[in-house]
């Protein structure tokens, strides 16, 4: 029962893709959309059934054996434990909402077959990553997600900027994927079965340096997919894709998959405290980097993009603090509020005719589009971690996990993470105030019908979850159960959470940070802004922040452009120049030698007779010499 349900959950989106490829061009548009949504709905139902059937236990199932050579084997294996099943349900749920949202959102787009096909295919690959046991199979899903992301970011492929953004995304994530494969090869060379269950069973047998190396490789791989420092340059530009794609792939699922990978393979990471500290540092750095850059953005989607990678940084920090359950809690909650924010932003953008600049939005939107404003508001409250909304509990868990770790390193990380939390609250309220309370408001305000109910209804389930999802893992000191931590602890490889360390203090701290951010935002952008120093929104430093502190330009200047120049150089100078000229030179040399020899053929009889005589004399002398 469990196994059948899990297999169905995995395969149904793939069947949807196959349908779209084979028959998409021949059926009505409605049929294509219905099949796409139905496949995901069925997959979600199957995933829920699997979760219910396999409650708390772990089992594995093999779909089929893929290939083996020598001792190395890859097969389509699934490992069904609480962690993977919860992830599968989450993916199915968010995907379903995004699919339903896409139907009215992408009305009128002629490339709909491609869109729904790739979207379904993406869900298949993401579920493969969630459920896979064998690491090569996981890599299939991993790279497949990269492909679907490329195809969907570049969905409107007539525009050169969009396809460049797609190309950048694919290339940067692939840089991370290289480390994944090296990790697989390393595991195999050490005699460990390259699969999640193999790692859970034999991680302890790895020698110290191998564990460190493997941990760092996995960190690099996760950093690529999750847009962590230094591989973060692709995510803001990935907003060139349609908004539902941004919501699904670049907020809730693919960017979180790096964190999920680390949580799944946590037994290896747990072997070396240095690696954990490293992961925490990368996460914190990204959290700060992203939060600061989000503060300076004007495009609503880019604010959310930088915010995403900042929040994923928090998830990484939780893993670095040794608490993968906290990281998963934040992952789930983040999926809810971030996709909510993206989908709401999509409604705004469409209502305002492709306007992305938050400075061009304003208070009229709040009055005209209340069915978008209120969910958005709830999402912002969750993002900023205002109690008692969901984000407050999950971020609190992360911070308490960090504070529970001894050592100066973790203390520094906790400090930095608190600063990032303050910035998070600040930029989220800035976003809210500028988009919905700003002055001057747009003169042309949209009518409520421009965001029909068919588009906006998906916002409400997510908004309700933003309010209530905190119940998944309410902390013990408030008398509640830490349910999610306990549930995940039954999964092999995810250790139980740390003991509660002065949690009341942390609760107060978190509340303080969130409210401080709200206050600062109100001061800077709220109704009383003219009484306070102006925010330097045009200053050079501000612009640098908006460009992500120049990381993008650095990578273009030091990696992309030199690569292109060297490529041209190698081609023109080396290939055409040196090598080709060497061969033509050799040919020319031979040709000149032969024209030199050609001088002998004068055509004159006297020359020939002379040479005949000379040659004969020589031969006879040599023969006489030999015979004597």
């Amino acid at each position, binding site marked *: 029962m469990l196994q059948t349900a899990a297999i169905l959950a995995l395969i149904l989106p793939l069947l949807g893709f196959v349908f779209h490829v084979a028959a998409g061009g021949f059926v009505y548009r409605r049929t294509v959309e219905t099949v796409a949504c139905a496949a995901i709905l069925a997959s979600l139902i199957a995933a829920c059934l699997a979760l219910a059937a396999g409650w708390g236990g772990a089992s594995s199932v093999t779909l089929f054996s893929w290939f083996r050579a020598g001792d190395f084997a890859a097969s389509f294996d699934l490992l069904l434990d609480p962690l993977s099943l919860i992830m599968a349900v989450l993916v199915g749920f968010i995907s379903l909402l995004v699919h339903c949202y896409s139907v009215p959102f992408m009305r009128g787009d002629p490339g709909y077959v491609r869109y729904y096909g790739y979207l379904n295919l993406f869900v298949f690959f993401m579920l493969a990553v969630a459920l896979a046991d064998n690491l090569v199979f996981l890599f299939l899903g991993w790279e497949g997600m990269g492909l679907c992301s490329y195809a969907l970011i570049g969905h409107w492929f007539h525009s050169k900027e969009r396809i460049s953004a797609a190309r950048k995304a694919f290339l940067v994530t692939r840089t991370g994927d290289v480390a994944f494969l090296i990790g697989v090869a390393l595991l195999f060379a050490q005699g460990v079965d390259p699969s999640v269950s193999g790692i859970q069973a034999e991680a302890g047998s790895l020698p110290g340096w191998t564990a460190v190396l493997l941990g760092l490789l996995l960190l690099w791989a996760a950093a690529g997919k999750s847009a962590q420092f230094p591989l973060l340059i692709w995510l803001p530009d990935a907003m060139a894709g349609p908004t539902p794609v941004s919501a699904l792939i670049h907020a809730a699922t693919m960017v979180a998959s790096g964190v999920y990978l680390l949580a799944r393979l946590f037994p290896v990471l747990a072997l070396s405290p240095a690696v954990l500290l490293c992961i925490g540092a990368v996460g914190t750095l990204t959290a700060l980097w992203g939060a600061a850059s989000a503060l300076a953005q004007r495009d609503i989607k880019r604010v959310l993009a930088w915010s995403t990678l900042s929040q994923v940084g928090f998830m990484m920090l939780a893993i670095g603090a040794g608490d993968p359950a906290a990281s998963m809690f934040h992952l789930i909650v983040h999926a809810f509020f971030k996709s909510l924010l993206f989908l709401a932003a999509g409604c705004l953008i469409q209502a305002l005719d492709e306007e992305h600049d938050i400075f061009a939005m304003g208070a009229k939107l709040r009055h005209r589009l209340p069915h978008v404003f209120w969910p958005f508001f709830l999402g912002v409250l969750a993002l900023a971690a205002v109690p008692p909304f969901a984000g407050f509990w999950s971020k609190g868990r992360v911070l308490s996990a960090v504070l529970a770790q001894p050592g100066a390193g973790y203390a520094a990380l906790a400090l930095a993470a608190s600063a990032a939390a303050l910035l998070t609250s600040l930029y989220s309220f800035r976003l809210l105030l500028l988009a919905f309370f700003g002055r001057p408001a747009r003169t042309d305000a949209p009518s409520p019908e421009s965001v029909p109910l068919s588009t906006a209804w998906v916002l409400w389930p997510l908004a309700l979850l933003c309010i209530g999802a905190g119940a998944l893992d309410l902390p013990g000191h408030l008398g509640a159960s830490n349910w999610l931590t306990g549930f995940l602890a039954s999964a092999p490889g995810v250790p139980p959470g740390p003991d509660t360390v002065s949690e009341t203090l942390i609760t107060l701290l978190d509340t303080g940070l969130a409210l401080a951010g709200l206050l600062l935002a109100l001061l800077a952008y709220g109704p009383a802004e003219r009484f306070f120093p102006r925010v330097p929104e045009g200053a050079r430093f501000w612009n640098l922040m908006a460009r992500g502190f120049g990381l993008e330009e650095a990578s273009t200047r030091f990696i992309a452009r030199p690569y292109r120049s060297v490529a041209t150089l190698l081609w023109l100078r080396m290939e055409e120049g040196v090598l080709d000229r060497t061969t033509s030179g050799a040919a020319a040399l031979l040709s000149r030698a032969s024209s030199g020899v*050609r001088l002998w*053929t*004068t*055509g*004159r*009889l*006297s020359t020939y*007779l*002379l040479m005949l*005589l000379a040659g004969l004399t020589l031969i006879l002398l040599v023969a006489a010499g030999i015979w004597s």
Partner: protein
Amino acid sequence: MIVPLEHVLVLALAVFLLGAGCALLRRNLIMILLGVEIMLNASGIALVGASLAWRDLHGQAFVLFIMGVAAAEVAVGLALVVYAHRRTGRLEADHFNKLRE
């Protein structure tokens, strides 16, 4: 034998060189043929001397053959020269250089 073999060979060599000189240094086709004839006769002298020195008649038989072949070759050669002169009116060897590349 009335003279040592070496003297005969020197005579043959001298005649040969004279014939070679004639063949190489003259431009006229007929003179080249003359030179070839002289070289053939020189080889005949060497063969006769060797035959007498070693008391073997094969050498002298060889000389008779050479004379016959030389006659035939001269006939053919002169026929070609006559034909070439009829075609071009010239008899210099350097004039016929079309076999060059």
